[in-house]
């Protein structure tokens, strides 16, 4: 039966998708300096090594700072734009929104070097803030995509009803709009955080003396002796991303349930 065959294919495909990631914990706990089979025993050494590397800690702190700031900035800008796009029509709407969403279809290297070039031309020094600017630029389209869904799902007459019952536009936003859009806001924060945390190319091009975690990782990749430690770091990062993603999904579903809407399957 065709169904059977497809099912087998689907399972194999999932194995293909997850295969590299599964290897991470396998070699992170492996007591051997070469990343190869056969495995040589269990150890926590590599994780312990992570705890004693100051450069790593610095990079982690940088990344966290950038990711949190990016998430907040991108979500705020995304809120404005998503609301404007779903509720109002104004001249030039399609080109303006299209332009804001452009980073989604530009290869990241183009974004990275154009930011680099203009900053060098303007004589701006590269710092964490330049990276935040770049990350926010690429995260805003994601934030808009998520929040547009939230706004579109909300019955427009809910806000009108609140006004009809005596509320001002500001209090309407606070009492009606915000609670209903909150799951989308949280999802946007989490997604933008994750994107920023994992982002490499823009950070690579725009980092001054303060590397982010992926940039630090990149620097370590040419030392074979450091590979197992990288595996350990990778395991932690992957775990973190997965937890964040599951949380975001949980909030998305909760938002749908609260509004009494059916599940259409995913953010995108």
């Amino acid at each position, binding site marked *: 039966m065709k169904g059977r065959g497809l099912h087998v294919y689907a399972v194999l495909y999932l194995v293909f998708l997850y295969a590299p990631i599964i290897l991470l914990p396998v070699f992170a706990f492996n007591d051997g300096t070469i990343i190869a089979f056969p495995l040589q025993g269990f150890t926590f050494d590599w994780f312990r090594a992570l705890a004693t590397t100051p450069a790593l800690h610095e990079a982690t702190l940088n990344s966290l700072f950038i990711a949190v700031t990016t998430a907040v900035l991108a979500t705020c800008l995304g809120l404005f734009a998503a609301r404007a796009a779903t509720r109002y029509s104004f001249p030039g709407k399609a080109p303006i929104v299209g332009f804001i969403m452009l980073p989604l279809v530009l290869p990241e290297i183009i974004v990275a070097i154009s930011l680099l070039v203009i900053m060098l031309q303007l004589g701006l020094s590269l710092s964490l803030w330049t990276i935040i600017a770049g990350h926010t630029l690429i995260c805003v389209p994601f934030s808009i995509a998520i929040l547009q869904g939230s706004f579109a799902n909300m019955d427009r*007459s809910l806000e009108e*009803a609140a*006004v009809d019952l005596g509320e001002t536009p500001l209090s309407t936003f606070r*009492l*009606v709009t915000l609670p209903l859009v909150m799951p989308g806001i949280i999802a946007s924060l989490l997604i933008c955080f994750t994107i920023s945390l994992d982002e490499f190319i823009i950070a690579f091009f725009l980092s001054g003396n303060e590397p982010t975690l992926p940039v630090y990782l990149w620097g370590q990749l040419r030392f074979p002796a450091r590979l197992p430690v990288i595996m350990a770091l990778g395991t932690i990062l992957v775990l973190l991303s997965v937890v964040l993603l599951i949380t975001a999904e949980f909030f998305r579903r909760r938002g749908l349930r609260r509004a009494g809407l059916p599940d259409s399957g995913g953010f995108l």
Partner: protein
Amino acid sequence: MKDMTSPPAIITLEDVHKYYGDYHALRGITAEIKQGEFFSLLGPSGCGKTTLLRAIAGFEDISGGRILLDGTDMEGVGANRRPTNMVFQSYAIFPHLSVGENVGFGLRKAGMGKAEKTRLVGEALEMVGLGGYGARAAHALSGGQRQRVALARALILKPKVLLLDEPLSALDKKMREQMQSELRRLQRQVGITFILVTHDQEEALIMSDRIAVMFEGEIAQLAPPQDLYRRPASKRVGQFIGMMNFLPATVLSEAGGEVQVEVPGLGRAGLARAQCPGPAAPGAAEIGLRPESLTVLFDGQGAERVAPGTVEEVTYYGDMTYYDIRLDGAPNAVSVSMRNMPGRPVLERGHTANLAWDARAMVLFG
């Protein structure tokens, strides 16, 4: 029907115009809606009735003219400050709040104590038949229940006017009929002015004290249901409300308050001036006649005016039968409705029939 002789106007519309860009949505609406009446805005989709309702509520700015609520010009007054409240077509129940929190939403600014609020919410829920529902989650209600919550939420604020935007269109037939009588009962009990927007003419006829029929941004006729039905001001209104037969006719003369017409298939008749909304100039015109104004005569029955014809089509509804009968000498068939009674036969296609007709039921157009 209530006595409408002397109540004051609660809403005055003076030459209200509304443009959406180039589109002229409201073209000079002038009307008075009286305090305490059940008023309907009736018309096909796109006629501007919802636009007018939203303009009264304050959700649309008007391009010209004035809207006066209880004597005060509403220009510049935001929707949140007008003495009106609205029941939205989708009911707009806040899904993140409970039923009680929904109903009490508008009381937040009144600055009353919690006990007072709870009491009022309880009363409002009782009034709409949802007593005890206060703690329920709002997103788990049925359509009919949501509508009641929307009503309670609006009425608890004791507005001067309650605006209803097609409130029954989302309900199934049985629920709709039930809510129609409920809304009428509620309006009488509360005593405030209701303005209902609907495209369903039957609904408007059932519930309203007066109806404004709108086509293309203008009021075609504003009258109580009986006048609207019996004396439509134009052919279009006659077609829109209920069913009407139209037959070509010739105006022979007009003298001393009586208009003589000749209707092929029926005969000659004299109509009162009140039956002629148009100029009634001599020449070609049209006669409108409701299906129930024609009667099929069975054996042994006679009438003052009789016209012979042949049955073309029979539609049986259970309590009524509609016949399409081609009158001898008339260019088109007329629809005749007859109540089915015990002992009364149902005619078949091809049968001949004699119809009794009454000139007093005719309306002359043109």
